């Protein structure tokens, strides 16, 4: 098995307001897959569909070789899940929460749970309902990591945490991935955080996956060009045009994906010239991808 998650033609609808359409996604084994997208783009819904918490209208979902939702419970035995909001029972203490959780996972690592509890400075007798947001985030991460899961599904795990706690949580995550070679699926709208740890990126917008590519390609393949005598764009362009904007009568600014240096020749053949090529940082690339996907004249990026 080379892919941990395979989703094809997924469709889901919530009234008339929001729909996921023809979603296809592949997460390779061992990847740290960053699932990016603005708020409300469908990231959490996709995760819930992926874990069998919501029934899809159409399409197929396979997680760790199990068809979801039918065999979601088998996949969930090997998945550590941290949802965006605290989902644990509020009336239990930290220790009771650990004991409750342990009962459902046969590979649960007690020693690791205790080590992480001390590292995260969580008191055994603290009530879950009295935990701060950061402490609650750490407890959820503790439980997910102590399961010895093959796949970690983390939905905005550091959202709203202060930088110190965020660093602690991400540190524990990176250690876990290093030692267990687990696959991580991490959803976030914090682009810079994803840039540091992820090797694959999927970008979601308006219920569609508008890009899925290795981080290296995402980081280096999106450029801003200053073009003089800009030619019309047809089907034969060797790159994907995300946006074009007129600067003056002679110059345009283009944002393209899949740029290679030899593509300058295409402009020269069309009687144009590329005057300047700028690298975009990840956040700019992300914004340009969204802009491109929302502009009807540009092509969808897959």
């Amino acid at each position, binding site marked *: 098995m080379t892919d941990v998650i395979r989703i094809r033609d997924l469709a889901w609808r919530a009234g008339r307001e929001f729909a996921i359409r023809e979603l296809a996604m592949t997460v390779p084994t061992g990847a740290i897959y960053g699932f990016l997208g603005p708020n409300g783009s469908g990231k959490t819904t996709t995760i819930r569909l992926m874990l069998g918490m919501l029934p899809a209208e159409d399409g197929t979902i396979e997680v760790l070789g199990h068809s979801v939702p039918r065999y979601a*419970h088998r996949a969930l035995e090997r998945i550590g899940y941290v949802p965006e909001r605290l989902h644990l*029972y509020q009336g239990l203490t930290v220790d009771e929460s650990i004991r409750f959780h342990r009962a459902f996972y046969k590979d649960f690592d007690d020693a690791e749970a205790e080590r992480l509890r001390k590292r995260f400075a969580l008191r055994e007798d603290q009530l879950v309902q009295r935990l701060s947001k950061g402490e609650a985030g750490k407890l959820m991460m503790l439980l997910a990591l102590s399961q010895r899961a093959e796949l970690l599904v983390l939905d905005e795990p550091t959202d709203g945490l202060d930088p110190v706690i965020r660093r602690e949580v991400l540190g524990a995550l990176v250690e876990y991935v290093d030692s267990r070679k687990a696959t991580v699926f991490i959803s976030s709208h914090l682009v810079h955080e994803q840039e540091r740890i992820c090797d694959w990126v999927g970008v979601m917008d308006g219920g569609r996956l508008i890009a899925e590519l290795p981080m290296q390609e995402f980081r280096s393949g999106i450029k801003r060009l200053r073009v003089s005598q800009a030619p019309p764009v047809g089907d034969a362009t060797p790159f994907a045009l995300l946006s074009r904007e007129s600067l003056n009568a002679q110059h345009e600014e283009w944002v393209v994906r899949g740029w290679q240096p030899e593509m300058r020749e295409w402009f020269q053949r069309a009687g144009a010239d590329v005057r300047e090529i700028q690298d975009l940082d990840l956040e700019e690339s992300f914004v340009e991808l969204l802009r491109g996907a929302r502009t009807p004249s540009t092509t969808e990026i897959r």
Partner: protein
Amino acid sequence: MFGQILYTQVKWSRTAVAILSIVTFATPALFWRMVHEGFFGQNSAMEVMNGFEALGPMLVAFAVFAGLLLVAQPWAVDSAARHVYPLALPLPWRKYVAMRFGAGALLLVIPAITLWLGSLLVLALIEIPATLRGYPGTLALRYLLGSLLAYSAVFALQYLSGRRAAHLLLGILIGLVVVALAAEFSGNTALLYSVVNRLIHWPGPLAVFGDSWMLIDV
């Protein structure tokens, strides 16, 4: 797994179960104490029967309340987090629901036992005329079945999906309205009584509530 589900149920419901247990233990004795000056002395068969007459409906109300309470507490906890935790656990939903049902049902046994003990205590304290007999076990069993029935019905409604539960409730309500309207327009209230009788007498689904809930009877 079941041990932990039961543990959470005990944590959420222990205060309610403790209060219910004290109430069901004390109710037979308090009831008798309110009707009579004291526990001791000669009483006629009629006095004893009258003394306990209203105990049955009160226990029916307690049984229904206990059933509702033990569903409402775990449901409120799970629905506060939109059921994300149980859905994320590695077991089929129906298995989780079965264990959650079992945990609540198990706790319902405690007030039934205390009712039985409280009834035994009263029977030990009062003098029963020779023509009458005490039925503490039967009363406690009826109480248990009544609370289990209420618990099961509400549990089934809550843990079905919202839409299905709404359809089921709507169907029952429409059925009752149709029967009531038919009785009103035809002037034939026998139809309504007939429906109610079919519900609360064997083999009707609510037959346990239609039975005699007497601690002391002939």
